[in-house]
């Protein structure tokens, strides 16, 4: 029982083909890093998994549910698949605590007390327990992103999607966010992470997918080996342009 399966998936935006014949199977507990040049379809691929974008053809199974089947309850898929965005998207009208408890209370029908207990445990995990009563606008970017991860975890998802979670952050706080992501990975969470943090890809990731022009060009079970010797010419060119590959 794989967590996510793409079979010959295509995605069009009008006439433009954003995903081309994607075949990708992700097992439970895998930490997959997706890299590739801008416009290569990384976000699109990620967003099809929780139905923010619909696929045009092919088959996409998430937790054994066929997303193209009209009988599939998308809300149930989203309940099981969390997402962390580049620009955090914390609920601006809710406190940090409420950001985390809203989903569990309204979707999982958890009691307020239980949801708040859970949230406090998660706030300690991400090191921000003292910020519980603040509004998102009072937090720094790095703090916001750690809250966004806690919000996703609060739903007890089976997988979490990360779309460039550190790209909007100041360099000095990127480490804090990556550290939290590593903790989540260590707990056995299935993670699909679009990022250009090569360190994370090598140390935490156990799979690396390189995309270009809407295609998966390289899919490696050994990220370190990939970075040392990418096989695909586009990957070689792409890595050549990235300054720090340490």
């Amino acid at each position, binding site marked *: 029982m794989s967590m996510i399966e793409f079979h010959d998936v295509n995605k069009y935006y009008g006439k433009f083909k954003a995903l081309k014949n994607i075949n990708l199977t992700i097992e439970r507990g895998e930490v997959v890093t997706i890299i590739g040049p801008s416009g290569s379809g990384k976000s699109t691929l990620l967003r099809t998994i*929780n139905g*923010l974008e619909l696929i045009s053809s092919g088959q996409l199974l998430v937790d054994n549910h066929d997303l193209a089947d009209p009988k599939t309850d998308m*809300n149930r898929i*989203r*309940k099981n*698949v*969390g*997402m962390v*965005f580049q*620009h955090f*998207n*914390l*609920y*601006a*009208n*809710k406190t940090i605590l409420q950001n985390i408890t*809203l*989903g569990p209370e*309204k*979707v*999982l029908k958890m009691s307020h007390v239980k949801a708040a207990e859970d949230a406090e445990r998660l706030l300690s995990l991400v090191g921000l327990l003292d910020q519980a009563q603040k509004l998102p606008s009072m937090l720094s970017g790095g703090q916001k992103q750690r809250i*966004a991860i806690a*919000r*996703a975890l609060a*739903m007890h998802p089976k997988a979490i999607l990360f779309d460039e979670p550190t790209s909007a952050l100041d360099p000095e706080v990127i480490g804090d966010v990556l550290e939290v992501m590593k903790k989540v990975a260590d707990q056995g969470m299935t993670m699909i992470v679009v990022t250009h943090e090569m360190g994370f890809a090598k140390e935490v990731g156990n799979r690396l997918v390189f995309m270009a022009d809407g295609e998966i060009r390289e899919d490696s079970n050994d990220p370190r080996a990939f970075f040392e010797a990418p096989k695909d010419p586009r990957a070689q060119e792409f890595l050549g342009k990235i300054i720090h590959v340490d």
Partner: protein
Amino acid sequence: MQNFIDAYSWINLRFLLEGMWVTIYVSAISVVLSFIIGAVLGLIRYMKIKYLSAVIGLIIDIIRNLPLLLIIFFMYFGLPSTFGIRLNTVTAAIVALTVFESAMLAEIIRGGIQSISGGQMEAARSNGLTYLQAMWYIILPQAFRNMVPPIVSQFVSLVKDSSLATIILLPELMYHSQIIYGQNTNYMIPMFVAMAFLYFVVCFLLSQLSKALARRLN
């Protein structure tokens, strides 16, 4: 100076206040009705429901681009001759103001919802909330906060615009003061001053009230 003292006789003041009462009464009913209708229409516009949203959008655009005076005329003179529906001046004024202000408010409300970034909706949906839950808990509260100032100023315009109904002889503030200075032109300036004061009081109280209400709802 003597003009002012004479103009503000007890009987004239009472007549003015009677007019002000009609202004308040007509405005208050129109404010409530147009807020409800405008909210529903604005939501439908935002939700892009097939055909319905487009049709409503077209009607709103037409209404917003008509002079209010024309709508008032239509409700009072046009309805009886075209549909055989006869409205009294108060009802005609309320209907005309409600139609016009609903169109204005619908656009404010749609714009207010649209101004909340799509990221909030995406985050809420990714969090497992349904579309309606996302709207109710996340989008609408934020949109509402942004919408309060333009809505309040639209309400204030409504009060001022109600004076246009003087043309169909609605016995409101403007009309009553015209009657007073119609009888003695020396009272014209004192009546202008009185109207300015009374409209200011009504509009100021209305905006304070709306803001207080909005704060409580938040």
